[in-house]
């Protein structure tokens, strides 16, 4: 089936997650081969996802882990006293 751009956009997220069925996947790929606009949208969306998963984009507060484990240690200690 020949897809138009809008149809490709509707499935772009599932295409990235590899959850479209084989036929649709082929149709999308055939469309991407000749459509620069959709290829660019796909690339830019993928890049955003790569950047999102990069630990440096969403960083933890400095000292987060130390403070967390200190707090847990106190909780564990109190819990032991109760027994």
């Amino acid at each position, binding site marked *: 089936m020949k897809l138009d751009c809008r149809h490709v956009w509707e499935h772009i997220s*599932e295409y*990235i997650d590899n959850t479209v069925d084989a036929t649709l996947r082929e149709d999308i790929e055939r469309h991407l081969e000749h459509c620069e606009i959709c290829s660019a*949208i796909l*690339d830019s*969306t993928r890049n955003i996802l790569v950047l999102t998963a990069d630990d440096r984009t*969403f960083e933890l507060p400095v000292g987060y882990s130390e403070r*967390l484990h200190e*707090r*847990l240690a106190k909780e564990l200690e109190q819990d032991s006293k109760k027994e």
Partner: protein
Amino acid sequence: MRTTETNEAGLIARILAGEKELFHELIRPYERMVYLTLFSIVKHQTEAEDGAQEALISGYRHLSSFRGDAKFSTWLVRIAINEGRKRLRKAKRAAEESIEEQAETHEGDFTPAPLTDWREIPLEALERKELREALRSAVAELPDIYRQVFALRDLEELSVEETAQALGITTGAVKVRLHRARMMLQKRLVPFLKTTAPTRRGFFGRAL
């Protein structure tokens, strides 16, 4: 080699039997996830950190109620989500935009933005600090229901099923919200991505 789950089940059994110190080890792989879950809800660093501590302490106190029907990570995320929502309510920030009451609308434009004169973004551009900042604010500005799905799926890398379980919504809703969140981000970041595209090249790859 034992799987993570078997390891975890073993750790949990030992903690419940009295080796409490092992709780530190049990939650270490999920510290980041719990913080990010809280942050995606309360959108405030100190509040998210306090919430993450509370959520993990709550996880410790209720560990005996973990039945193993869901993954331990999903169970923790669910506790984190509840903690975040509790904090939102307390801050009365939720008064007008209750997470539970928000539903998808069929209005609005969830199509991506076409790029003209697009060239593949060079890896160096992705290294730029400004791009990270732009992405952080774009994510913060997403409507709650979209941001939470996006955070669990694309930031914390939970599966569609785990995300659905954690948020108590259907897998269909996860897919729809994720798609919309991604398209909204793409649209928001396009102007930025465009400026980071390399200089235009003429025929045969010669720089103009």
